[in-house]
């Protein structure tokens, strides 16, 4: 802060007009010391500086060095702020996509488990056999599927449910009502889970008539006209951008696993 020698009652007011230029204090001292040798004053013009001019110089604001310093510090602060913001933004995007994948995965596995737990042996005539059939990439079975009627009421109706792994997606479809007996009708698949890099179904056939589950023996395929599998497992690996792959498995014990029940 520069204190100007202004006599009388305006002295205090003049002080507030002088601004904050700490480097000028040093320059003012150098000006005082080096009378007659003004080249020492850096940016000062090579002429005699009077008292009124020196007073004006104290009101000029920032010097070049101060401005450069301020710009340098500002650039440093902005660079560090931008880099941290960028890192944060990238982390946010990565975690957000990861969170969406986890949420979809959990919802999908829940629906998958519900479909399998509601599955049953369809006791149709031999003309329309609908059995639980599956291999490592697709399966179909009869289950209860919740639907809405024209009045908007929900109801559970029998439907033939299809699951298929194709490309990097797990697809699901179902045929309701009389459509499920039509062998020539192909279902309209919808993407159930996406970003899948590896997936497969495993089946465990029941080994006895006991109501107690035994140690499971997983196989790649299942086809039995008289029984449902004892359990079904879906193993899948999902890709996430810039993060570890998500490896998950869902195993479901089917409600009616035994043909004699």
């Amino acid at each position, binding site marked *: *802060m520069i204190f100007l020698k202004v006599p009388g009652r305006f002295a205090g007011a003049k002080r*507030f007009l002088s601004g*904050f230029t700490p480097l000028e204090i040093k320059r003012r001292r150098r000006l005082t010391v080096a009378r007659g040798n003004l080249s020492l004053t850096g940016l000062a013009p090579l002429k005699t500086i009077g008292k009124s001019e020196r007073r004006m110089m104290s009101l000029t604001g920032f010097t070049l060095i101060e401005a450069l310093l301020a710009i340098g510090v500002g650039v440093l602060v902005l660079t560090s*702020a931008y880099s*941290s913001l960028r890192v*944060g933004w990238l*982390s*946010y995007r990565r*975690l*957000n996509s*990861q*969170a969406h994948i*986890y*949420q979809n*995965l*959990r919802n999908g*596995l829940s629906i998958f488990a519900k479909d399998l737990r509601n599955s049953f042996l369809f006791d149709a005539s031999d003309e329309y056999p609908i059995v639980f059939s599956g291999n490592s990439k697709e399966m179909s079975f009869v289950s209860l599927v919740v639907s809405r009627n024209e009045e908007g009421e929900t109801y559970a109706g029998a439907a033939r449910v299809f699951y298929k792994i194709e490309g990097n997606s797990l697809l699901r479809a179902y045929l309701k009502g009389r459509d499920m007996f039509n062998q020539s009708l192909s279902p309209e698949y919808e993407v159930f889970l996406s970003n899948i890099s590896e997936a497969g179904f495993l089946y465990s056939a029941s080994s006895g008539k006991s109501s*107690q*589950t*035994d*140690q*499971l023996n997983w196989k790649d395929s299942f086809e039995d006209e008289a029984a449902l599998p004892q*359990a079904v497992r879906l193993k899948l690996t999902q890709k996430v951008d810039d993060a570890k792959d*998500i*490896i*998950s*498995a*869902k*195993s*479901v*014990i089917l409600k009616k696993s035994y043909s004699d029940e």
Partner: protein
Amino acid sequence: MLIEVLVAVILLGFSVIYLSRAFMGCLNTMLQFANYTTALILTEEKLFNLEIVSKESDIAREGIFSENADFSYRLEVYRLSELELNQADLDVQWKDGRRSGVVNTACYFAVKK
């Protein structure tokens, strides 16, 4: 004036610090959500294994999940004397940097003879 500049800088500094802390908190919450969801999926799979295991001695009491090595589990099984039931307390734990998390689950399953 110097004081004005200092006050402005301090206010700006505090706002930047609190904004960045809020942002980091948001990121941590999302990470915890992802870990928690993974733990729930692994817990369900572990409970399935408990359901199908035929002998109580075959149940592994602690270990690391093969699907995700960042997650481990600890299992304690008690016999409920008056009932033909076992109680299983399952803790699925994970560690992510300095933070750690746990999902506690208790379930009951029939005593296998």
